[in-house]
């Protein structure tokens, strides 16, 4: 019992002895203040050792030529797009995106952490004890929200001008892609697992990119979710003109469905408008570089079609 009492007491004291400010403000001229998901975030230095906990943030850093020292890459470097991997220097994996290892992050001695409000809100306080933490939407974010978050990252790391220029270039590229694509065609993206098909609706990142490229989202019915699990019959009800699928495994559920009579009734199947893409690019990465890759994918799809 004595043991418990001692622990109780020491814990209480330790809890009370917390004092918060993770970083103080010195006047050396640099002062980057931005609004993140938790309020105002400011840095008075240019971060050199950045740890990012979602893939979209790697994309944002790579877009202005900054290499993070640590990435929550699920211990699989292939999760980072090849285009981005070639851009950045070697990094240390800090574990999964859902449960990144805080001690690995701490061991990297970062001076900025970029976290996802959807996944990492629960450890925001801990992350702040390691380093100033910029927390932004990633997982549930739409294309527009992602562009906004990318601009915020640019400002926070002291590369506002470069990032604005890059975003302008991105808008230009997307507009160029849109010109090469047939306007208003109905395109639906989905990821196929072994046992389920998830459609990425108009509210998802991929849905936003499709719209940004001047194409149209298929009507997936209820619109409260970014991703919708869909059976073959429900998929037939959606019946998109073009179907872009990312196979997380092969053979996926689509390969099973291909043998079903219902499959042949699909407009996309009848007109052979079904195309495979890299699911990682289309579903997980969510950033301006991956959006441009998606645009190129679609151009390939539609030019092969003519």
């Amino acid at each position, binding site marked *: 019992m004595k043991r418990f009492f001692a622990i109780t007491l020491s814990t209480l004291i330790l809890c009370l002895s917390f004092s918060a400010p993770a970083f103080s403000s010195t006047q050396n001229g640099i002062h980057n203040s931005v609004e993140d998901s938790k309020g105002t975030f400011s840095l008075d230095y240019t971060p050199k050792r950045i740890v990012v906990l979602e893939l979209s943030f790697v994309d944002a850093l790579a877009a202005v030529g900054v290499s993070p020292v640590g990435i929550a890459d699920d211990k699989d470097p292939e999760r980072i797009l090849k285009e981005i991997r070639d851009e950045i220097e070697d990094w240390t994996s800090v574990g999964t995106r859902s449960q*990144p290892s805080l001690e690995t992050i701490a061991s990297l001695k970062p001076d900025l952490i970029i976290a996802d409000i959807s996944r990492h809100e629960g450890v925001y*306080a801990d992350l702040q004890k390691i380093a100033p933490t910029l927390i932004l939407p990633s997982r549930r974010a739409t294309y527009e929200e992602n562009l906004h978050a990318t601009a915020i990252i640019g400002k926070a790391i002291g590369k506002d001008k470069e990032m604005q220029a890059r975003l302008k270039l991105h808008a230009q590229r997307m507009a160029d892609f849109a010109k090469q694509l047939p306007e208003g065609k109905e395109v639906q993206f989905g990821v196929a697992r072994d046992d389920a098909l998830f459609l990425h609706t108009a509210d998802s990142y991929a849905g936003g990119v499709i719209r940004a490229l001047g194409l149209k989202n298929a009507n997936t019915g209820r619109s409260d979710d*970014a991703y919708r699990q869909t059976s073959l019959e429900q998929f037939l009800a959606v019946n998109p003109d073009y179907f872009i699928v990312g196979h997380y495994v092969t053979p996926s559920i689509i390969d099973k469905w291909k043998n079903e009579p219902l499959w042949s009734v699909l407009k996309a199947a009848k007109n052979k408008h079904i195309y495979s893409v890299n699911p990682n690019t289309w579903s997980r990465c969510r950033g301006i570089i991956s959006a441009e890759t998606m645009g190129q994918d679609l151009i390939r799809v539609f030019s092969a079609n003519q």
Partner: protein
Amino acid sequence: MATRSLPILLLILLGLLVANLMFGAVSLPFKHIIEGFQVGNANYFTIHEYRFPRTILAMLVGAMMALAGALVQGVIRNPLASPDVLGVSHGAGLAAVFYMTFFPSADISWLPAVALIGSLIAALMLWWLCGQHSSTIKLAITGVALAALYASCIDFLMLVKPLEINNALLWLTGSLWGRGWNQLAMLLPWLLLIPCALWLAKPLNLIYLGDDSAISLGVKASTLRLVSLAIAVGLTASCVAICGPIGFLGLVAPHLTRKLVGGRHQLLLPSTMLVGAILLLLADLAARTIDPPIELPAGIMTAIIGAPYFLWLLFRTK
């Protein structure tokens, strides 16, 4: 045997406490651990802010869940009973999944409170259905039925709203990831239940002789049962609220302890707390060090360690 076990268990516990501080994604020698408690040290975050509170939390949660298990097994007089039988952890799970599914943008720091309310409602539900004077077997079966009902509701929610499935699944497997001083502070008031539980040791021995004998020896059987179960519910609910339902701990730890020290509750209850703490410390250590920097949920580890061991135990006793 019985008296020798206690110091050995204490020694193992101490060893594991140190091991939990030393090993992880980054292993540190013992000297650095001591230094890590000083503010400003390079390892201050890793040791003081991260591993130390998490280790203490694992010890307390393990001890409390095991104690809850021993209490439930004591009053239901069935070594296969566990707090899960009361539907408490599933009630907490349902509340947590409901909260995460329908309020995905709500503040995650409310989750422990929501889970706690869920488990307490589940306990009240069981009490309301069974009343104070029903037989233990009715209580157990009602609890199992309710637990199954909550489990199916959880499945339903997760299938209807697959977007939130990741967060919910992570919570439902039970994990110590990201738990620290704040969670430890939340758990503190519930530690008061531990002396209350230990105080029940003697009457629990008597109730093991059967209700009739216990009553004739001056034990108010139904009151004792209610109090013990209420304490078990409180212990389980507070732990589940913080770490999620960590499987098998409440079942295996008391069972294992009974093999080690026998059924006298004066010895069984403190020993089972040690065993529970040891099991969870071991599970969390394994979860952090098997494939760093990947963190596995400790709940998976307790099930992986617990289930085969439990089977072996059962087959050996036959």
